């Protein structure tokens, strides 16, 4: 592991060809990748949510700041939420300078992740096409390209001829109802194996001493000195966490949940500008590789990539109705199929294997809410909407810095909860969402 600031406490299992052959011949079991320990009565920090954001926070707390007396608690299993359900796309071609700088740092951390975590995350920088079907979206693409270039991000607008060279399966003729007029091409964008990112962070954090507690549900956050009932609310501070496995005292709680961010924050008396919507995705049967890049169309509310196994993965806009129910709907499948065939008529005979759904915490400006809250020791890394996976490494790094130093790092200052008081919103709807 390169660049490791702090020494490992435990040697991670090696996943080499030699180790595979050796264990295969001896019939050994592989050692557990992370320990299962008793919940202690006290930690320096408790991270709620065992997804990529929570695990990355624990990892960077240990690696960059030497804070290892940390528990990551999750009411289900690690990576059971959006971390295991997303469409695995990474990119940094956002619209606001704040957004571009932040996501570009994330992409750099993804690029070095395999070395840092000693796990193959199957990072595939295959390029990312955001299609424009009308003049106004072409204008937004040009705007994004210029903002990106100023920040040193590889991004440009290309026409239908170049698009058909990159992705011949796309119908770039003038026949469709919404013909493709151009695209924002972002070569560093791509896909990453999302489960490997979860496992890599969990294993690395465990090796450095952090504890992962699965099936540990947070029932309440214990506070004192606040304005509200039970000492919660602004002006107070966190003293502990009540879980289904007992009470834990801690001066720092980091809320890294998605879907349940508002409910967890209300346990500390903090209200958030968040509504929870389901986002549906679907996957087809595997076929030979024919789609070399990630393709996104905001007008058609769809994004498409082909996995290394050959399946097409489709994502869409969030459902319009706020709900915690993650049932799929036929309307989604019908609309998705219609829109995908508008882009690629050639795949009309392909069959969908399955569809699923996950919860997205949507904020009014399509940017996250990160950093300190009016309750002392209660930090949030929430509101990740439909773009949480691609931001996980940088979020963990920056949240760890906030916890360790007690100050808001420059990169996440624009995403503070207080921006809703001052009206300094970071509008990313044009670049973060496909439903507008």
């Amino acid at each position, binding site marked *: 592991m390169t660049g490791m600031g702090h020494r490992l406490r435990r040697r991670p299992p090696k996943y080499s060809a030699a180790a595979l052959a050796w264990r295969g011949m001896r019939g050994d079991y592989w050692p557990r990748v992370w320990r299962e320990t008793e919940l202690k009565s006290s930690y320096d920090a408790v991270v709620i949510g065992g997804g990529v954001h929570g695990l990355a926070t624990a990892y960077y707390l240990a690696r960059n700041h030497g804070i290892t007396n940390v528990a990551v608690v999750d009411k289900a299993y690690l990576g059971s939420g959006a971390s295991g359900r997303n469409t695995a796309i990474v990119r940094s071609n956002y619209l606001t300078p704040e957004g571009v700088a932040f996501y570009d740092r994330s992409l750099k951390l993804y690029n070095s992740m395999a070395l840092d975590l000693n796990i193959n995350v199957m990072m595939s920088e295959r390029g990312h096409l955001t299609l424009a079907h009308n003049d106004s979206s072409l204008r937004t693409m040009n705007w994004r390209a210029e903002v990106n270039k100023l920040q040193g991000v590889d991004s440009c607008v290309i026409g239908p001829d170049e698009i058909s060279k990159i992705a011949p399966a796309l119908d770039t003729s003038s026949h469709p109802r919404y013909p493709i007029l151009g695209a924002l091409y972002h070569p560093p964008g791509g896909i990453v194996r999302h489960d490997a990112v979860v496992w890599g962070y969990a294993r690395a954090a465990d090796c450095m001493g952090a504890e992962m507690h699965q099936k540990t549900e947070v029932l309440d956050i214990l506070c004192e000195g606040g304005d509200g009932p039970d000492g919660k609310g602004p002006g107070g501070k966190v003293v502990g966490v009540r879980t289904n496995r007992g009470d834990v005292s801690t001066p720092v709680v980091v809320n890294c949940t998605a879907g349940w961010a*508002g409910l967890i924050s209300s346990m500390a008396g903090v*209200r958030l500008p*968040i509504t929870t919507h389901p986002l549906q995705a679907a996957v087809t049967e595997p076929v030979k590789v024919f789609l070399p890049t990630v393709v996104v169309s905001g007008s058609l509310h769809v994004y498409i990539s082909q996995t290394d196994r050959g399946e097409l993965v489709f994502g869409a806009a969030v459902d319009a109705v*706020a709900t915690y129910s993650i049932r799929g709907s*036929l309307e989604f499948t019908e609309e998705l199929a219609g829109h995908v065939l508008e882009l690629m008529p050639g795949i009309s005979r392909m069959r969908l294997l399955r569809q699923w759904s996950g919860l997205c915490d949507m904020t*009014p400006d399509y940017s996250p809410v990160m950093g300190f809250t009016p309750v002392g020791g209660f930090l949030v890394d929430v509101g990740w909407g439909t773009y949480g996976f691609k931001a996980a490494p940088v979020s963990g790094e920056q949240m760890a810095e906030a916890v360790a130093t007690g100050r808001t790092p420059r990169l996440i200052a624009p995403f503070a909860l207080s921006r809703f008081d001052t009206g300094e919103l970071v509008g990313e709807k044009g670049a973060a969402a496909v439903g507008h």
Partner: protein
Amino acid sequence: MLLVPCPNCGPRNSEDLRYGGESHARPDPATATPQQWRGYLYLRDNPAGWLWETWYCRSGCRRWFTLERNTATNEFRNPPIPGDKRGGKA
């Protein structure tokens, strides 16, 4: 599919309606503080349970109404109230 009980048109597919979100009383512009406006504009209860919310019947009667839905199970209770007004708790 979600069947939403419109007070004028009866049960309609949610795709035929526009979702208006949580129903909250608008602060009095004469006396409201910036904090109250901020709360009204941005902050949400977002419960996993019963919630009063507004809907617009865009392809039917083209009127707003308010109803109570369980956001975890998508069940409805209480008859829908015509108009964009806050029901339930004060």
